[in-house]
C-alpha cells in the first residue's frame, strides 16, 4: 500500500545543501527531509581541507572581490558572474553562521577562525596566494555535516532516513512532489509538496577511479532528466589531481596548501613548468592535466601511470613551499592533516612523513547538473522557473563553478545556495497552495520497480549482472571521457553506453524480497547512472573546445566565439517517466553565460 505524506517543503538529500536548506525552510514552513542514507553518512562528511570565505582573518588583504575573481577565472570564465558574486559575498556570513551553530573551527592566536592556502585562491586578482580556507583540521566537511545535523535535531526537523527517491512528480509544468521507497520495508511513499528540493549530491560512480561514495549514483538527477527537464554543463567533470593510486581516495589539496609538492619519475617538481607562479597550488584541472602529461611523456614513477605527492617536512623545507616560505615541522603537519596522513598509512601501508605517496587524478566533482537560478529555483530549457522545484549543492548548476571548480568552493556552494533555497521555499510555500497530485502518480515507477524485482536469476549464468554492466560503464567513462578527451574516445564511450543500455534490458537480480532489497535498488541505480553517463559523454563530444575540466586533444584551445555558453541536454522522445531513457533520444540546447565585472581573458597561473 502506498503511503501518502504532505509537506510544504520536501528536501531530497541530507548532505550540506539539504540540511542547510532544511534548517532555513523548517523555520517558516512544514518541512521534511528524505535521504537514502542516514544524514551523517552523506558525502559532505568526506570533504577535507576547508571552506573558503574572504574573512581576511590572516590579515593578508583578502576581499570578496578577489574570491569572486578567482572563482570566475578558476571556472575558465564559464561561471555566471552574478552567481559567483553572491557566492563570494554570502560565504562570509555563512561561515560565521556555521561558527555560531557550534562548528569547531581551527583558531588563530587571537581566537578567530584560522585560514590556510588552497589552489587558485589569490589576492589582488591573481597576484599572490592568499589564506582563505577556513577549516577544522582536514575534516571540515565532517564538521559541517555534523553541525548542520545537530542543529536540525535541535530544531526538530522531520527526517525520513533511508528513503530512496525514484521519481519526480509533475502536474503539467509544476513539480508536486516525489515518490520514494522506504528501504527497510520496501513500501512506496508519495510525498506531496509545494516546494521540492533536489540536494542529492554528485554522481561520480559513473567513473572507475573516483573519490565518490558508493551511494553517489545521481538517482534524483536522473529522475529530473527522465521527466524531460534539462541538465546543464554535464561535460564538465572535475578530476581531482591527488587521489590515492588505484583507490581514488582523496588526499586533500590542503596538503599542498601546507606545502606538499608533486614529483615526477625524474624527481622533478614538475608544476614549476606548468604554473610558474602558483606551482602546486594551481587549480585542479590544470594540475590533473599536468600529471597526465608527465605520465604520457614517460615521466611517471618508474614510467608507470602515477606520480608522487611528497609531504615530508624535509621536502617541503627544501623547496621552501610551506605557507609564506616558512619552515614546517612534522608535528604541525600531523596536526593539520591527521585524516589524510592516516588514510595513507591505512590504505597504502606507508608513512607519508617518511615516504612520498603514489597519486593519480580521481573523478571527483560534477560542475554541471540541474540548472537553477540564484535562489535555487530550477529552470527549464527556456530559463523559465519550474514552479515548485528547487536544487542545490553538487547536483545543481547555478553556475558558480563554471568549467572547473576551485577547491573549498563546493562547501561554500552548499551552505550559500542551500540557505538561499531554503529561504525561498518558505516564501513560495507561504503564497502558494498545493497543486493536485496526478491520479496514480506513483504507478509508473512502481511498475518499473516490480518488473525489475521479478527478474530473478535462475542460475548463476542467467541474464546480465548489475556489477558487470556497472564495471563496464565505469571502465569506458574512465578511459574515454577522462582528463584528456578526443572525438574518437568519446564516440567510443557513447557506443559502449549504447551497448550497455541494450544489455540493461536483460538485467537479472538475486533478491526478490521487500525488506532492505539493495540488490533491486542497485539495479535501479545502474539505470540512472547509464542515463547520466550518456549525458556526460554526449555533451562532452559536442563541445568542440577545451575549457576548464573539459580538455580535448583535438580542440586544445578555448573558443569563446563559439563556445562561451552553457550547454543543455534533455530527452526528446516525447516520453516523461521514471524509466531508462532510450539511447540517443536527447536534444541539445544552450544558454548564454552571464558575464559582468571580469572580461574573459587567457587563463594563466
Amino acid at each position, binding site marked *: 500500500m502506498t503511503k501518502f505524506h504532505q509537506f510544504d517543503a520536501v528536501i531530497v538529500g541530507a548532505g550540506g545543501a539539504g540540511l542547510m536548506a532544511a534548517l532555513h525552510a523548517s523555520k517558516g514552513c512544514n518541512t521534511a527531509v528524505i535521504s537514502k542514507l542516514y544524514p551523517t553518512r552523506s558525502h559532505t562528511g568526506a570533504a577535507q581541507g576547508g571552506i573558503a570565505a574572504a574573512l581576511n582573518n590572516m590579515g593578508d588583504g583578502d576581499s570578496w572581490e578577489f574570491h569572486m575573481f578567482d572563482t570566475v577565472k578558476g571556472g575558465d570564465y564559464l561561471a555566471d558572474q552574478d552567481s559567483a558574486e553572491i557566492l563570494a559575498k554570502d560565504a562570509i556570513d555563512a561561515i560565521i553562521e556555521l561558527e555560531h551553530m557550534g562548528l569547531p573551527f581551527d*583558531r588563530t592566536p587571537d581566537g*578567530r577562525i584560522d585560514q590556510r592556502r588552497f589552489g587558485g585562491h589569490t589576492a589582488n586578482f591573481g597576484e599572490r596566494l592568499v589564506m582563505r580556507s577556513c577549516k577544522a583540521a582536514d575534516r571540515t566537511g565532517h564538521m559541517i555535516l555534523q553541525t548542520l545535523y545537530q542543529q536540525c*535535531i535541535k530544531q526538530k526537523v522531520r527526517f525520513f532516513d533511508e528513503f530512496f527517491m525514484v521519481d519526480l512528480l509533475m502536474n503539467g509544468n509544476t513539480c508536486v512532489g516525489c515518490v520514494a521507497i522506504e528501504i527497510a520495508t520496501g513500501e512506496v511513499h508519495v510525498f506531496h509538496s509545494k516546494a521540492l528540493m533536489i540536494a542529492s549530491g554528485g554522481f561520480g560512480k559513473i567513473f572507475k577511479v573516483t573519490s565518490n561514495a558508493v551511494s553517489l549514483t545521481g538517482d534524483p538527477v536522473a529522475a529530473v532528466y527522465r521527466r524531460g527537464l534539462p541538465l546543464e554543463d554535464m561535460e564538465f567533470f572535475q578530476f581531482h589531481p591527488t587521489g590515492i593510486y588505484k583507490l581514488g581516495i582523496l588526499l586533500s589539496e590542503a596538503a599542498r596548501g601546507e606545502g606538499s609538492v608533486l614529483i615526477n619519475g625524474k624527481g622533478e617538481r614538475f608544476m614549476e613548468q606548468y604554473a610558474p607562479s602558483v606551482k602546486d597550488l594551481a587549480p585542479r584541472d590544470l594540475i590533473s592535466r599536468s600529471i597526465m602529461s608527465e605520465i604520457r611523456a614517460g615521466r611517471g614513477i618508474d614510467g608507470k601511470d602515477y606520480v608522487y605527492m611528497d609531504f615530508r617536512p624535509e621536502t617541503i623545507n627544501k623547496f621552501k613551499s610551506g605557507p609564506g616560505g616558512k619552515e614546517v615541522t612534522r608535528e604541525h603537519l600531523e596536526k593539520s592533516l591527521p585524516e589524510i596522513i592516516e588514510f595513507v598509512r591505512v590504505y597504502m601501508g606507508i608513512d607519508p612523513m617518511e615516504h612520498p605517496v603514489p597519486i593519480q587524478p580521481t573523478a571527483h566533482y560534477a560542475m554541471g547538473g540541474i540548472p537553477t537560478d540564484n535562489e535555487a529555483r530550477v529552470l527549464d530549457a527556456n530559463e523559465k522557473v519550474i514552479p515548485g522545484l528547487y536544487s542545490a549543492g553538487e547536483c545543481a548548476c547555478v553556475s558558480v563553478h563554471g568549467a572547473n571548480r576551485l577547491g573549498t568552493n563546493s562547501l561554500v556552494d552548499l551552505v550559500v545556495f542551500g540557505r538561499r533555497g531554503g529561504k525561498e521555499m518558505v516564501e513560495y510555500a507561504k503564497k502558494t497552495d498545493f497543486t493536485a497530485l496526478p491520479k496514480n502518480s506513483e504507478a509508473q515507477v512502481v511498475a518499473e520497480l516490480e518488473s525489475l524485482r521479478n527478474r530473478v536469476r535462475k542460475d548463476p549464468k542467467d541474464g546480465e549482472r548489475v556489477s558487470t554492466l556497472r564495471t563496464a560503464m565505469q571502465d569506458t567513462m574512465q578511459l574515454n571521457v577522462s582528463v584528456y578527451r578526443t572525438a574518437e574516445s568519446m564516440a567510443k564511450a557513447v557506443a559502449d553506453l549504447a551497448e550497455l543500455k541494450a544489455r540493461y534490458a536483460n538485467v537479472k*537480480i538475486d533478491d526478490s524480497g521487500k525488506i*532492505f532489497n*539493495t540488490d533491486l535498488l542497485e539495479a535501479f541505480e545502474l539505470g540512472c547512472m547509464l542515463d547520466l553517463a550518456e549525458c556526460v559523454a554526449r555533451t562532452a563530444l559536442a563541445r568542440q573546445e577545451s575549457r576548464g575540466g573539459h580538455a580535448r586533444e583535438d580542440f586544445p584551445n578555448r573558443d569563446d566565439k563559439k563556445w562561451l555558453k552553457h550547454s543543455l541536454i534533455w530527452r526528446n522522445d516525447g516520453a516523461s517517466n521514471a524509466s531508462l531513457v532510450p539511447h540517443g533520444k536527447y536534444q541539445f540546447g544552450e544558454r548564454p553565460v552571464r558575464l559582468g565585472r571580469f572580461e574573459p581573458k587567457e587563463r594563466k597561473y
Partner: protein
Amino acid sequence: MKLHLKIKRFNPEKDKAPWWGEYDVDVEPTDRVLDAIHYVKYYQDGTLNLRRSCAHGVCGSDAMRINGKNALACKLLVQDLGTDHITIEPLLGMRVIKDLVVDMEPFFDHYRSIMPFLVNDEPLPANGRERLQTQEQVDRISEGTKCILCAACTGSCPAFWANGKYVGPSAIVQAHRFIFDTRDRASAQRLGILNERMGVWRCRTAFNCTNVCPKDIPITRQIAEVKNAILSGVIA
C-alpha cells in the same frame, strides 16, 4: 590471495533463524574487508545485505563484527587480519533487519537524548563575527568531534548488551564534545541527563569501546571525565 568468508545471514522474509553463509573469494592482500564482501554480493549472492557508503572510514556506515571485534569493513585491510578465514557478523546488541544491517534507531535515540547541539542564547558578537575561542579550547574537544556515529563502540559494550536502555559510549562522547565546549551553555543539563540511572554510571570501564573506535577516540577516558564533572561539579 584466497579468502574464506563466513557471514552471518538472516532474511526475516525467509529465515526463522540466522544461519552462516560460507564463501570463497580471491582478493588482493591490500583489499579492504569491504571489497571481499562486495565480491560476494556482486558476483556470488546479490541477496547479501550491508550498509556502506564512503568506503574509506569517514561516513560510519559499515561497522560490523569482524573476527570477533567491531570494525569498519572499509578501514580494515585483509592483510591486517593475520588469517585467511574471516567471520563477519552484525553489531551485537542491536536488532537485525537483514544480514549485516541492524536497526540504528535506538542508537540515534540515545544520541538525540543527550542534547547533541550547541546551546547558547547569549547575544552574538556585536561586530557580526565569530565567537572567540583559543586553539587550546578547540583541542580540548577535538578528539570527540571526530566521532562518526558508526556505533562500533556502543555495539561492543557489555553494559549496553546487558541493557539497551543504557545511553552507551557514543552518546557520551557526543555529550562530552559539548560539555567541554567553552561556547556551550547547557553542560549542567547534559550532566543531569548522564547522571541518571541509564547514564554514565552504567559504564564498567571494560575499555571495549576504546579498543574498537575507528577514530581512536579515548572513549573510556572521556566517560571518566564526564563522571568526574558530575561528581566535582567542575568542567575543565
